[in-house]
């Protein structure tokens, strides 16, 4: 009987992160985009938990829905996209049910976000200092005080000559400097959670490591948790407490980073790790799994990874093609969506 217990799908995500109190809880989140080819399910039933102070890395190939998931957490999806269902709770409050004003307070004050293209995210006609000071002024700080605070924030993110740079315009900054500014803006109101959506992808390789170190250092300094979206397993190994692997709009496996790297349970995770053999080196890309991500507008009825899955072929599991796998426990603190785990118990 003990074997069936193990094989039971884990329907609730009660086995949350090991350390710290629950900060963010996502259940069954679904986000779609209406396109000419039909409904594109970018996020398709995602469960995710983040504890206070931890670093969760969200990994996956481009097009797997990582960024859409990150935006959905803050309800930043714009038409033709829309959030169709599920629940996002931040410190117990239902983000989906928040009125506009509370949502605005959530954004920036509770959750900060840093995007991929720092240069594009800075307003070209506003001084750097104004852009950092603006959230502070909205928070009730006077103009002069906000400006001084902005300079301090810029100093904290390691921008050289912060007092001068505060009166500079974005086009006068390098990409790395711009991302430092964006980090300062995102953390200005000391949020409890920072979402960093591929924050180093657009930057020179030489500054990527600096920015990642800065992100971790600043989050620790203010005690914020971080969701780091990346497709770089080297970054994951270096920064993450826990990892969530995303594939075709679903989280196929999540767990503590050491467990997941040592004993990946999902065939896709195994493929990823095989494709990036030199862990710890930044800059590895996920490329070497044969086949491509399925068309999100024409998802197969079963497991999205099934067509590419060598485990399925080896085990001859036919239900993978017809029936989407539920979440199974995987390892001491992990979870994975794979039918292979159903029989794993034996």
């Amino acid at each position: 009987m003990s074997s069936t217990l193990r094989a039971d799908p884990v329907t609730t995500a009660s086995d949350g992160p090991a350390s710290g109190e629950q900060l963010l809880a996502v259940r069954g989140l679904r986000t779609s985009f209406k396109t000419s080819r039909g409904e594109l399910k970018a996020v398709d039933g995602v469960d995710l938990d983040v504890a206070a102070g931890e670093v969760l890395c969200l990994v996956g190939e481009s097009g797997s829905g990582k960024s859409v998931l990150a935006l959905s957490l803050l309800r930043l999806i714009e038409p033709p996209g829309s959030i169709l269902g599920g629940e996002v709770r931040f410190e117990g409050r239902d983000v989906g049910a928040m009125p506009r004003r509370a949502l605005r307070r959530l954004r920036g004050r509770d959750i900060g976000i840093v995007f991929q293209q720092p240069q594009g995210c800075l307003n070209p006609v506003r001084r750097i200092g104004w852009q950092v000071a603006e959230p502070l002024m909205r928070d009730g700080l006077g103009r002069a005080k906000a400006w001084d605070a902005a300079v301090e924030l810029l100093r904290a993110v390691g921008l050289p000559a912060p007092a001068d740079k505060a009166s500079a315009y974005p086009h006068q900054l390098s990409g790395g400097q711009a991302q430092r500014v964006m980090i300062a803006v995102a953390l200005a109101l000391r949020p409890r959670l920072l979402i960093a959506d591929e924050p180093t992808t657009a930057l020179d390789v030489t500054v990527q490591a600096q920015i990642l170190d800065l992100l971790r250092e600043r989050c620790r300094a203010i005690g914020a948790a971080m969701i780091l979206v990346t497709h770089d397993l080297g970054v994951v190994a270096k920064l993450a407490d826990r990892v969530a692997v995303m594939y075709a709009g679903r989280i196929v496996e999540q767990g503590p980073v050491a467990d997941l790297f040592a004993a990946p349970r999902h065939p896709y995770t195994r493929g990823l790790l095989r494709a990036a053999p030199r862990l710890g080196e930044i800059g590895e890309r996920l490329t070497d799994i044969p086949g491509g991500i399925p068309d999100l507008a024409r998802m197969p009825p079963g497991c999205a990874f099934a067509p590419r899955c060598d485990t399925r072929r080896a085990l001859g599991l036919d239900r993978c093609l017809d029936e989407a796998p539920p979440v199974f426990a995987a390892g001491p603190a992990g979870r994975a969506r794979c039918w292979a785990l159903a029989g794993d118990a034996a």
Partner: protein
Amino acid sequence: MARYVLRRLLLAVPVVVGIMLITFLIKAVIPTDAVTAQFQGQMSEADAAQAIAALRAKYHLDLPWYRQFVLYVESLLHGDLGESIRLRRPVSSEIGFRYLNTLMLTGAALSIALVVGMGTGILAAVRRNSWLDVTATTVGLFGTSMPAFFFGLLLILVVSVWLRWLPVVPRGPAAIVLPALALGLIEAAPLSRVTRTAMIDVLRRDYIRAARARGTGEIALVLRHALPNALLVVLTVIGLQIGNLLGGAFIVETIFSWHGIGELAVEAIGWRDFALTQAVILVSAGTYLAVNLVADILYAWVDPRVELAA
């Protein structure tokens, strides 16, 4: 900044000379010049010939054209715009208050155009594809097809004749209302379209999404984050818009008997009063040039990305 301004001013010098050359042409290439026209059929042949010769000498019409041009430029530099043959007094005495009237009218019209055009443009961009957007776009298309003089007459018909909101011949400050509306509303149409396009472009930029992601309210997002960027685009066409206003003033002033230089120009051309025509054209072109210069400099000053040193 000072060097940039100086450079723009120097670049304008050949254009100023060109403008003077063209206004000079008005008098130089006419088949029967202004002086002969004055005396035809008014006195005996011999007397006329003598008087003509005297006047030709007085106006230097007996000199070769390039000497005439130099004299023309010289007198302009002395602030002498010549004498109106029709009004029989110095052109400058007539043009001064007329110019102020036109500035007043175009200023009022520009305010209306800016408020209405940019207001509807911003709203249409923010509420894209709403009934307001569709209405603004349709009305804008009608506006670009509407002859200014017909629109002016319609305004009189509706406001003064049918609704009786204003007297048919308004006096005092009320007199400016209809001409300014006619001129301003027509010009609001293209301005609205430019603003809408610029705003839509700006609103889908990453920095707007980023600002929204950190909790900026919609109104602050539009007014404080998006608008300054869209204004830069609008500023690039504002010179052209003011040119259109100055141009439109010729027609609108005629309809509403607004005594500005537009009305004067139309009259002067009809009278074949060339000194007056020259002066009016010169003043208008000069104003247009100055406005464009100011717009250019303003643009360089406002947009941090323009390198002033270059």
